């Protein structure tokens, strides 16, 4: 039986017990963590994570994402709130009895053990017979493409290889949840992309519920089923990547992910008015009186004339150009606003600093975020 089969068995067993896939599997309820009793590192987080889901915790450092992960793993005690795994409260369960696999940023491989001994460690702790340990550890190493490296010590392996061993070690015992704490932070760009693909492949094959902590937005965007955006100890938004990008619910989420332009939009006489532009012909998403109007730079294009109905058309002074090869970022001002527009290179070849051009975006491409 391979690691893969075992997981499939585990999955079908939970099915036969009547657990529905769409139900929350890992529930985090009103989680609070304070180290000194005064300041809170985590200020009341609630998340429902489904079985088999790949969830990223995304946020700047100090936003509480790693602290939350540490509480799920059992290395930190929550000050209040609860963590339920498959309906069972695990907050009081010590880390070594949780059956949750974890991969650390600095790998945390045991330096005095070979790769095979490292991977066999969790099985040995579970009193698995020696022959089975050897077989399953070898299998797990094979799964991450390191079958030939079992006899090496961590110091004799590259960073990428060590990370693979750490991954195999975190998966070999069939954990209920896999936690990854910025696992690719120490690797160079090419290796990082390779490992992203590898982690996604393994997630697909094993169908294991995974939480991935990162401060790299593109990593979160490409890998996750859903992203929880952390800021200052709270989750600002928890949604699929495209929702996070297109329909952020707070200004922080809109500005942290991707490039953005924000305009002040206010409600006046049942209509919406954008600062520097004027009346908008779009409906307000809520009863709020003030909104942040988010326009992504790539939603802005050159205006070639025609019917202006449904468009915001502005005269734009180019103050700077940044060439990315495939696209050009225009930095400048229009109607007293600082704006950034991203154009395909082929459309921008004739533009220079100091030019004044006509730009436009569709009013529907402006996303409104109520001001809290």
């Amino acid at each position, binding site marked *: 039986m391979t690691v893969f089969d075992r997981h499939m068995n585990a999955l079908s067993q939970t099915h036969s017990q009547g657990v529905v896939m769409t139900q929350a599997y890992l529930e985090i309820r009103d989680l609070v963590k304070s180290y000194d009793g005064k300041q809170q590192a985590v200020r009341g987080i609630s998340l429902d994570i489904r079985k088999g889901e790949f969830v990223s915790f995304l946020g700047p450092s100090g936003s509480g994402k790693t602290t939350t992960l540490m509480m799920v793993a059992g290395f930190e005690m929550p000050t209040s709130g609860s963590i339920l795994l498959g309906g069972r409260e695990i907050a009081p369960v010590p*880390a070594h009895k949780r059956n949750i696999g974890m991969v650390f940023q600095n790998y945390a491989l*045991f330096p005095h053990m070979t790769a095979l001994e490292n991977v066999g460690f969790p099985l040995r702790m579970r009193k698995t017979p020696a022959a089975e340990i050897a077989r399953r550890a070898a299998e797990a190493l094979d799964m991450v493409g390191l079958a030939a490296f079992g006899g090496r010590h961590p110091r004799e392996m590259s960073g990428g290889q060590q990370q693979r061993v750490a991954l195999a070690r975190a998966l070999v015992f069939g954990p209920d949840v896999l936690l990854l704490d910025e696992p690719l932070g120490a690797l160079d760009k090419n290796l990082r992309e390779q490992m992203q693909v590898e982690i996604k492949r393994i997630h697909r094959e094993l169908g294991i519920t995974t939480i991935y902590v990162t401060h790299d937005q593109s990593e979160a965007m490409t890998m996750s089923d859903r992203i929880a955006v952390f800021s200052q100890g709270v989750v600002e938004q928890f949604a699929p990547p495209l929702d996070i990008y297109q329909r952020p619910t707070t200004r922080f989420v809109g500005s942290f992910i991707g490039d953005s332009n924000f305009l002040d939009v206010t409600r006046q006489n049942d209509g919406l008015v954008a600062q520097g532009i004027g009346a908008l012909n779009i409906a307000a998403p809520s009863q709020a009186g003030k909104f942040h109007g988010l326009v992504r730079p790539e939603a802005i294009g050159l205006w070639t004339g025609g019917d202006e109905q449904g468009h915001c058309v502005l005269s734009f002074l180019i103050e700077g150009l940044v060439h990315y090869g495939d696209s050009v970022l225009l930095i400048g001002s229009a109607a007293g606003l600082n704006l950034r527009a991203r154009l395909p290179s082929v459309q921008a070849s004739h533009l220079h600093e100091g030019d004044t051009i006509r730009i436009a975006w569709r009013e529907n491409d402006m996303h409104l975020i109520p001001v809290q």
Partner: protein
Amino acid sequence: MRITLALALLVALFVLGPLLVVVPMSFSTANSFEFPPPGYWLGYYRSFFGDERWLTPVFNSIGIGLATMLLTMLLVIPASFAMVRQRFMGRSAINLLLMMPMIVPNIVMALGYYTYFSQLKIIHSPLGVVLAHTCLSVPVCYLIIAASLKGFDRNLERAAMNLGASPLRTFWEVTFPVLRPGFLVGGLFAFIHSFDEAVVAIFISGQAASTLPRKMFDSIRIEADPIISVVSTLLFAVVLLAVLSPLAWRAIVKARSQFRAA
């Protein structure tokens, strides 16, 4: 460049100077201290290894050194964990207390032990010497073990617990093996410190628990026996071996892993 080299040689000569005198003298045929020796033989080595008055202190010293090492480790390992990993009131005061035996002059310590241990009736006994030596060994041993503990990656322990090891198993399977080199060096220094120590030993070891340095001191003062150069040479050889053994061990381990990787 040439001046630096000359200076380095001068310093080396200065440090090694006593050895260059003592080692040849131990093979000397002269029946008192005489340099350069008139001739060479192994006679004094023979009489050293056949003389109970010398062998007893040797075994005393080894026994006291081992006991000191054990007791020091029992005190220093838990103390280091507490000092490095916990934050508590009076932590820096305790740190100072741990270093105190290194700061206070040995002769002052020795005088203190002499009067205090007399009252406790453990003067002139191995127990007294072991207790005093333990106290003196604590600072250096603590410095070494605390340093290796500071360099220890706590994530290793987290990983072990995450993988299903109880706190006790985590200590025996991960923390202890990873820190073992630091513990070994710390223990070695505690042993050497006790084995070398003369001042306290002279004050409190007496005849019954006489250590080797004390016996050497007595021997110089009373009889000026050339055997003392034999003892010095042997002492130096033992300490050199003890200090070099971790280096040699590391070289062997490295060679072995390179062999395996190839």
